[in-house]
C-alpha cells in the first residue's frame, strides 16, 4: 500500500524526470537538426565579431575616423547655433588634427595615439598595468565639442543606410562616452555581418545544397577573417556586403522559383538598398535588369516575342527614367567622372596605361592578399605562404568551375549550372564596376588613388565561396567525398580565422 508520503515522493521523482530528463532528451533531438546549428553558427559569428571589434583599437579600421565623423556630423542638430569658421582644407594624412572633424573626434583620436599606430605596424598604444588606458578617464569625462565648427567639413558625402542607423545610435547613446558610442556602432556592423551569414545559409539552401552542406558553406563565409573584421568596423562596406547578399538571395530565389512578385520586390528592394549603401551598389541595378528579363522571358511564354520585347523596352525605359529622376546627376557624375578632363590623348591609351599598372602579378596578388587578410589600416598582414596556399586552391577551384560549366554531366550534390553562371556573372560585374571607377580616377589624376583592395570584393563573398566549393567539388567522385572535402575546407578556414586573430591581430596591437 502506498502511503501519502511515498506517493508524494513518486510525484516529485516523476516531475524531476520530466523537467530534467525530457528537456535533455529534446535538446538531444534538437541538436541533431541543422537549424539548431545554424543558430549556434550565428551566435559564434556574433561572439567572433565582438572579439574582432575589440581587438582593433579605436579608429584603427580603414577610414573609421571618417565614417564615425560622418555619423557624428549627421547626428548634429539641424540648426547650427554655434560659431562656424571657414578655412581652406589642408589635409595631412598623418595628422588627424588637420581634418575638419569635431573636437571630440580629433582629441579622442589623439588620446589613443591614432596617428602613431596607423600604418606603422611596429607601433602600439602606450599601455598601463590595468584595464584602463592612460587617457581613458580624460576621454570618458571630456566635454569636447561634438559638432564640427570648421568648414568645409571633411565628412563623407555618400548616402548610406549605415550612416542613418549609426546616426540614430549616436543620438540614442548621446549621454555615453565616445568609446561607448563608437564600439556600439561597431557592434551594429557585427549584426549586419550576422545577417550576411544567415543569407549565406538561405542562398546555399535555395540553390540545392543539402541542409548540412549549406551550413558548412555558411560557416566558410562566417570564418573568412576579412569578412569578420570588415563586419567589426565602423564602415559602410558592411552595408554594401549586406545589400549584395540580400540581392543574391533574391536573385537565386527568382532563378529557382521563377516569376514571383515577392522575389521581384525583394530584388528591387535590395538593389535600392545597395544604391543607398555605397557607390558600387549601383551595379545591382545594372545586374537586376538582365536577370528580370531572363526570368520574365521564361515566364511569359504565352506572350508573343514582339509584345514581350515591347514591354521590356517600356519597362527598361521606365526604370532608367526612375533612376535618372531620383539619383542626383551629381552622384552619377562623381562615380563616373564624366565631366572631368582626361590626362591621356585617347581612352584606349588611358585604358592600356591603367592595365599596365594594375593587371600585373604584384597588383593582383595584393588584391588577393587583402581579400583574405590585410587587417587594420592594411598594415597587419597574414603570411605570404598562407596566401600562396589559398591562391593555389582558388586556381584549382576556378578550373573545376569552368570544367563543370562546359561539361555535360550534372552532379547531384552540386548546384545547377544556372546558379554558377549567375555567380560568375555577378563577380565579373562587381569586378568591372570597381575597376571602371578606379580607372576613371586614374584617367583624371594619372595616379592609382582608389586601388583595388580585396575588401572591395567582399560583397560577392557568398557567390565566391559557392563557386570555390563547386569548383573543388567537381573533382570529387561522389557525395561522400564532397562531404569530406567540405569538412576539410571548414577546418582549414576555422584554423585560418584563429590564426588571423591570435597570431596576427592580437600580437600586432597588444604584444
Amino acid at each position, binding site marked *: 500500500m502506498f502511503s501519502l508520503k511515498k506517493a508524494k515522493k513518486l510525484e516529485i521523482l516523476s516531475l524531476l524526470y520530466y523537467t530534467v530528463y525530457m528537456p535533455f532528451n529534446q535538446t538531444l533531438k534538437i541538436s541533431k537538426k541543422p537549424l539548431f546549428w545554424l543558430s549556434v553558427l550565428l551566435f*559564434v559569428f556574433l561572439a*567572433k565579431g565582438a*572579439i574582432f571589434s575589440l581587438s582593433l583599437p579605436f579608429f584603427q579600421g580603414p577610414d573609421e575616423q571618417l565614417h564615425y565623423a560622418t555619423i557624428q556630423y549627421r547626428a548634429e542638430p539641424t540648426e547650427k547655433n554655434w560659431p562656424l569658421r571657414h578655412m581652406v582644407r589642408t589635409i595631412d594624412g598623418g595628422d588627424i588634427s588637420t581634418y575638419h572633424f569635431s573636437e571630440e573626434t580629433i582629441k579622442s583620436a589623439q588620446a589613443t595615439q591614432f596617428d602613431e599606430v596607423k600604418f606603422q605596424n*611596429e607601433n602600439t598604444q602606450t*599601455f598601463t598595468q*590595468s*584595464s584602463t588606458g592612460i587617457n*581613458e578617464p580624460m576621454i570618458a569625462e571630456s566635454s569636447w565639442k561634438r559638432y564640427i565648427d570648421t568648414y568645409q567639413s571633411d565628412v563623407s558625402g555618400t548616402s548610406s543606410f549605415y550612416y542613418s542607423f549609426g546616426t540614430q545610435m549616436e543620438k540614442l547613446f548621446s549621454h555615453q562616452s565616445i568609446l561607448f558610442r563608437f564600439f556600439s556602432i561597431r557592434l551594429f556592423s557585427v549584426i549586419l555581418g550576422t545577417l550576411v551569414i544567415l543569407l549565406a545559409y538561405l542562398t546555399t539552401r535555395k540553390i540545392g545544397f543539402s541542409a548540412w552542406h549549406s551550413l558548412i558553406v555558411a560557416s566558410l563565409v562566417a570564418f573568412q577573417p576579412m569578412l569578420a573584421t570588415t563586419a567589426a568596423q565602423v564602415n559602410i562596406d558592411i552595408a554594401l556586403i549586406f545589400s549584395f547578399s540580400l540581392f543574391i538571395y533574391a536573385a537565386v530565389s527568382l532563378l529557382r522559383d521563377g516569376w514571383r512578385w515577392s522575389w521581384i520586390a525583394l530584388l528591387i528592394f535590395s538593389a535600392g538598398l545597395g544604391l543607398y549603401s555605397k557607390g558600387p551598389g549601383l551595379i545591382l541595378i545594372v545586374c537586376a535588369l538582365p536577370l528580370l528579363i531572363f526570368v520574365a522571358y521564361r515566364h511569359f511564354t504565352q506572350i508573343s516575342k514582339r509584345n514581350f520585347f515591347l514591354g521590356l523596352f517600356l519597362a527598361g525605359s521606365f526604370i532608367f527614367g526612375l533612376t535618372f529622376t531620383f539619383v542626383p546627376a551629381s552622384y552619377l557624375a562623381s562615380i563616373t567622372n564624366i565631366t572631368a578632363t582626361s590626362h591621356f590623348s585617347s581612352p584606349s591609351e588611358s585604358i592600356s596605361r591603367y592595365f599596365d599598372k594594375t593587371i600585373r602579378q604584384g597588383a593582383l596578388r595584393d588584391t588577393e592578399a587583402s581579400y583574405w587578410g590585410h587587417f587594420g589600416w592594411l598594415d597587419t598582414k597574414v603570411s605570404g605562404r598562407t596566401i600562396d596556399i589559398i591562391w593555389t586552391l582558388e586556381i584549382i577551384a576556378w578550373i573545376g568551375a569552368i570544367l563543370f560549366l562546359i561539361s555535360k554531366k550534372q552532379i547531384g550534390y552540386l548546384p545547377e549550372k544556372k546558379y554558377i553562371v549567375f555567380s560568375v556573372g555577378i563577380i565579373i560585374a562587381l569586378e568591372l564596376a570597381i575597376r571602371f571607377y578606379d580607372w576613371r580616377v586614374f584617367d583624371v589624376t594619372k595616379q592609382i588613388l582608389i586601388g583595388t583592395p580585396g575588401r572591395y570584393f567582399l560583397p560577392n563573398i557568398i557567390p565566391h565561396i559557392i563557386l570555390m566549393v563547386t569548383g573543388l567539388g567537381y573533382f570529387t567522385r561522389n*557525395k561522400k567525398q564532397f562531404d569530406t572535402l567540405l*569538412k576539410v575546407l571548414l577546418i582549414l578556414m576555422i584554423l585560418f580565422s584563429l590564426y588571423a586573430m591570435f597570431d596576427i591581430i592580437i600580437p600586432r596591437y597588444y604584444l
Partner: protein
Amino acid sequence: MNHLLTKLNNERTWLALLFVGGLLWIFVTFFSYLSFPDSSYNFIGTTNKVKLDPGAPVTQTFTATENNLNQIKVVFGNATITKKETVVFELADAACTHPLAQNTHRPYDSSPFIYYRLSFPAIPDSLGQTYCLVVTYFSPYDRGSDRPSLGASAGEQFTGLSYTNTGNGRTYENRTLQMRPSYGSGSLYGDLGRLNDRLSQYKPGFLKGPFLTGIFALFFLGTFALVYALIFRKNEE
C-alpha cells in the same frame, strides 16, 4: 599496428588530427608571442636601416624597466637569407661581452612577423639592470646592399640612447635600434590576465575585463561545438 592503421583510415581521426594539429601550431605560436613589450615609446620621426656586415656585430645597451625580462623584439628587415648564412641574436651583459641568451635565424626559418623575437627564460630580477642586444650576421657571400638589416630611429624621445655598428666602427648617438625589451608576468595565468587588461583599454565597460573573458569563452565553446557537430557527424550518403 593494425588497430592504429584502422584508426588512421577513419576519416574522423585524421580530421581530428588536422584540427588539433592546426590548433596546437596556432597556440604554440601565440604563446611564443605572449610577452609584454615596453610600450612607453613609439618609433616616430626619422627612421633608417642598419645594414648588417658579415661578422661585425651591431650592439645596443638598454635598461630593463620591469622584472621577468623574457624577450627582445627587434625590427629585422630583408630577413630571407640563403644557405650557409645565419643571423645570431644575443642578449649580453652591460659590456656586450658575455652572452646570456642566444637565438639563431637560419635560412629556412620563416620571415618574422613585424619583429624578430629573441626569446629566453625570464630573468626574475631584471628591473633596473642594464643589458646589451648583440646582432651578428654571418655570410660567406658579398650581397652588397641586399644584406639583412635592422630598423633604427632618431628623434627627441631617443635622446641619450645610442647603438654601435662595429662594421663601420661608428656609434650613433641619440638614436636607437627599433627594439623593445619585453616582459612576462611570472605565470601563464598572469600573462593572460595582463593581455586581458591590454585588450580592455580604451573599450567601453561592456567589452572590458570579465565581459571580455566571457566573450572569448563563449566564442571557443561555440566554435568547438560547431566543429564537433559539422565535422565529426556521419557523412551524408
